[in-house]
């Protein structure tokens, strides 16, 4: 069996947990999450005509109460950088996190998710932001954990990327 570890990384409340919930059924409870700062789910996908079992690590956001455990990122085969499209600063924070964990994450495929795409009226990101991502050569995708838009395809794409790593 082929298994891949993937992580979700981003500011608190950008919708990481909601994205996973949208994608898989939960394995560990919310209380567990708050104690140790991570929630692990699994989901089988077919990527590049292979069955892959994704072990999804939902890292609890980085805030004043709990620091993000770098050790949780170790060995990940791919990761999501998650930002909240209605809060511009969350995108900046995501980039910052990536920089902070450079030592661990260097060379590992990732994808940027611009979540809460259903909240079009509060949307703060503009073409400039997207151009900037494009200029870095990053893959990004708008998602909505509420409507499910882009979620399934984002996970499938990340699974494919994990295969190439």
């Amino acid at each position: 069996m082929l298994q891949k570890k993937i992580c979700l990384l981003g500011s608190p409340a950008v919708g990481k947990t909601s994205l996973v919930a949208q994608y898989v059924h939960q394995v560990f409870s919310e209380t567990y999450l708050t104690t140790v700062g991570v929630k692990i789910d699994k989901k089988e996908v077919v990527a590049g005509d292979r069955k892959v079992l994704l072990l999804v690590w939902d890292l609890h956001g980085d805030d004043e109460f709990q620091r993000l455990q770098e050790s949780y990122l170790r060995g990940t085969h791919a990761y999501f950088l998650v930002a909240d499209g209605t809060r511009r600063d969350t995108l900046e924070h995501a980039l910052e996190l990536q920089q902070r964990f450079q030592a661990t994450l260097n060379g590992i495929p990732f994808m940027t998710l611009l979540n809460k795409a259903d909240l079009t009226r509060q949307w703060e990101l503009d073409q400039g932001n997207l151009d900037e991502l494009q200029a870095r050569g990053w893959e990004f995708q708008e998602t909505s954990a509420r409507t499910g838009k882009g979620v399934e395809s984002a996970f499938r794409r990340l699974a494919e990327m994990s295969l190439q790593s």
Partner: protein
Amino acid sequence: MPRRSPTTTPNAQDELERLRELILGNAAPERIQKELDRLRARLDDQGIRAEEISRALPAAIRRSTARDEQLSQALGQTIEGALDASVRRNPKPIAEAIFPIIGPAIRKAIANAIRGMVQGINQTLEHSLTPRGLRWRWESWRTGVPFAQIVLLKSLVYRVEQVFLIHRETSLLLHHVAADDVRLGHPEAVPAMVSVIQDFVGDSFSEAGGLQQFEVGEVSVLTEHGPEAYLAVVVRGIPPASHLRERMNRALERVHLEFGAQLGNFQGDSDPFADTETHLESCLVEEKRSQKPNWVSASMLILALLLFSIWLTVVLVRDFQMKRRWNGFLDHLGTEPGITVVESGRRNGNFFVHGLKDPFAADPQALAGQHLLRPQNIQWQWEAYHALTPTLVERRAAALLEAPDEVRLQVLEQGLLQVEGRANHAWIRRLDLQAPLIPGIRKVNRTALQDTDAMALEQAAQDLESYTWMFPPQASAFADLSSDAQNRWLEGMERLHRAAVRMGLSMEGQVRIDRQANESESLATERWQNLLAALPANLRRNSAWDPVFLTEGSPSLQFRLAWPNRHSQD
């Protein structure tokens, strides 16, 4: 190749020639012909063709298989058919071919099944009857976990239920084994959880070398770390200190030794690690709680049960017999004259009888004895009454009348007392007085009862009648009888007197005077006096000897019996 037509024009001939040159170059026609013949021969000769195809076949099959599954599908049917035909014709070769595979597989399966079954039965048996067993049954019922499994869990000191081989870097599961009857959820997510806990604790409490053991609910998780991978075992019960860790380390070393390359290149594909199975299985150890052989207590229990059932049988049989005797006794009482049972039964294990009893009825205690019951174990309560059944009346009459031996009493219907036999006069008088007063007797019939005294009196009187004391005329001294006759007369007088006394009769004498011979009364009185003088004293004293003078007949002296108060003749 078609032969040239003879009718072809020279012009046409030229063109053909040119064409041939174009196609075949300027090789000599003979050589071409030879080449063609060789080719034809190769195609026609089956032997050569087979030889060539056989050389090309393996490569062709490999290539075809790599491209798609058409060949496999095509061959599949043929091979199936061939196998089928072969087995039908003679199954032996194929059976022999697959035997080395199937034999061990079957043996293993059977051994496993038997081992599991025997273990299950043994433990279930051992634990079925004990109080602890019952408690476990209750737990099994409450939790829905099969009883056999609860027995297994409770009778183990510890048991390694699952072994996880985990890739250190990614926390992904490399391989996993579990004890036979452990139900599995999702082993793939467990390694991530285990490593999160270890990292968390390691970071939070700076535990050196990571966490080696932690508890999750009822189980403990033990970890042993290697450079690339680590082992996590799930243990139910109290895990042994060093023994298990030794095994884990040994297994981990072997895995690193044999799978070093795969571990280094691990990209999430766990398939190569299936071969670590035997190493992981070496960690599936368990230790049973040392249990006193329960056979001892079981046999004690069986013995106790046996004794108890014997005792119970004895008690029940005895009780049954006792009841039967009791019922027999009650039936007997019911038919016994003079006894009427009003209430009977068993109170606090003791029998009791309440009822009415005639004083002349049979003794109930003696009856109880006849029925093998102990009278002292029975509570008696009798009210006295007079029974009117003939037997009882008869018995009462016999007791009250004290009938002599020669008397037979019999009570017939309607209270008629029939008296037969012989009795003295005094008893007959008592009968006449008392019998009508006895409860249950209304009439007495004693016509068949002989009065012995009356008979004696009669006999004596008859005997005496043959004696007549004769007096010579005008003489007062009577003519002498022989002394023998005199003695017999006296004896008769004695008897007569005795009987008369018994019957309350008195005697009186008669003196007859011969008037024609002018005999005077004074002569008669003299004669009377003489006679009396001849009688014994007691006869003289006890009788009212008043002479009655009669004038008819020859002068004589006779005696009569009479009631003392009436001077009438008997």
